[in-house]
């Protein structure tokens, strides 16, 4: 059965995934809006950067984040100057890394939803006296709801499933950075196959249920 360290890892994983997803919905929305609406020449480049985590090995992302956030890195120097210390090997560092790693899984469904709405409802709202901000909350967000559902589920599930980035930037510190995927790795290393089974089977069941919910609740929404 699951031990205390296993339960701690599960709790930490859920916490990480929730914080990451909330932050991503918040920061991903303006990015998705810009990508969906812009006619700027930068659209391609920004879209590509957002999509990078899909194709890059997690170790590459982890490595660069480590360099950037580390004591000698530019972000690290900034965080130190602000009295925040350095982020690697802390929960906050893990959150930052997860936000980057899961960014495309949140931005793309929202962007697709925004694009699917098209110009017309926005124009109709404008002719009905709604300011652009008013239109965003009264028309765009409700119409993009399926996209937000997809984005939340994928962002959450993808964060739960990350391993390489966590290992690079978070290390393996119990209660602080040791998430389920790392815990499974530890069990396997220690030949504790029973525990590894429990956790792994739990992950399989969790992922299946999440995707099943997504596909049944949101049959019309765009899927990645």
């Amino acid at each position: 059965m699951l031990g205390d360290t296993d339960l701690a890892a599960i709790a930490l994983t859920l916490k990480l995934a929730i914080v990451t997803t909330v932050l991503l919905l918040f920061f991903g929305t303006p990015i998705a809006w810009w990508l969906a609406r812009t006619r700027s020449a930068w659209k391609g480049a920004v879209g590509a950067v957002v999509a990078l985590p899909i194709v890059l090995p997690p170790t590459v992302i982890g490595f660069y984040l480590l360099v950037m956030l580390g004591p000698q890195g530019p972000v690290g120097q900034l965080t130190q100057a602000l009295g925040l210390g350095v982020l690697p090997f802390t929960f906050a560092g893990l959150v930052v890394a997860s936000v980057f790693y899961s960014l495309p899984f949140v931005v793309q469904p929202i962007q697709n939803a925004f694009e699917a709405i098209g110009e017309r409802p926005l124009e109709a709202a404008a002719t009905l006296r709604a300011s652009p901000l008013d239109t965003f909350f009264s028309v765009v967000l409700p119409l993009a709801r399926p996209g937000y559902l997809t984005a939340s589920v994928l962002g959450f599930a993808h964060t739960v499933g990350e391993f390489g980035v966590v290992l690079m930037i978070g290390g393996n510190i119990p209660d602080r950075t040791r998430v389920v995927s790392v815990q499974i790795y530890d069990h396997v290393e220690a030949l504790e196959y029973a525990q590894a089974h429990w956790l792994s089977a739990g992950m399989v069941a969790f992922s299946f249920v999440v995707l099943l919910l997504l596909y049944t609740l949101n049959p019309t929404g765009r899927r990645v």
Partner: protein
Amino acid sequence: MKTVARPAIHARFKLDYPGFSLDVDLTLPGQGVTALFGHSGSGKTTLLRAIAGLERVAGGRLAVNGETWQDDAVFRPTHQRPLGYVFQEASLFPHLSVQANLEYGQKRVPAAVRRVSLDQAVAMLDIGHLLGRKPARLSGGERQRVGIARALATSPRLLLMDEPLAALDHARKQEILPYLERLHDELDIPVLYVSHAPDEVARLADHIVVMEGGRALATGPLTDTLARLDLPIKLGEDAGVVLDAVVAERDAEWHLAHMEFAGGRLWVRDHGLPVGHAARVRILARDASLARTPHSGTSILNTLPAVVVDSIDDTHPALTLVKLRVGDSPLLARLTRRSAHALELEPGQLVYVQIKAVALIG
């Protein structure tokens, strides 16, 4: 300050896109229905969008009944222009019920400037039974009626309609037209109505702007403008005049109504309109023929004395288009050049117009 004697809309817009340009400087009446008429690509929808502020035209100027909406210093974004806009597809918000769609615009208008109540808009378009439904559960005609009511509920000071009937089939169009006529009769809101359908224009408009290639070819009152010889040719088979008439008498035996217009009377099929009712009649140039003497022994019911005003070569070399005056009303007749030659037509000459078909519209 310049004072505006009569309500008017001044619009000046110049746009240059590759393959399309718009260059208009118009003064339109600030009341009644003005049709922006032209083929697709003539710029009529772009002009309407520019007036709405949906198309941002640099250097454009727009003043509506004395209020500047756009000039070199000012650009009021769409949501700050007191207008109503009806799109070709109703463009209702799919996540809101009919009721909530109607309220969407209305609740964003300050109570002090509301002149059209929600109940009034609902009653006028007869959509009371649809209020609880979602737009997806409405027919095309119902959707468009809700779209019109939604625009009205904002108490617009200018109503812009972009081919509101073009996406509907014939039966749906007939369903909506009476409501549009009602708008015209009951509300004192100036309407700009974009259309490429001559029958809609003939039925609804008081005033017309004929657009071609991004320019306004002609603008003026409907009857006079349609009777201009240089324009009807562009209308081809649809060339003809629209006359305001009143039901003068009804003939029960033959089911005919006698319509009186400024210049005479015409028999039309009796559509049940009571005596004294005002209606428009439309006479196409191809349905009018000319004779030197009044004929007897013909099936044609309507023969009127007329004076030749002018004529012009039609698009086909065999045809000529003749402008006539029947009393105070203009009329157009399309003849072959050979007939015109045989009749020795010349301006000022008295002839008899035989009218094969008169359409009663609205």
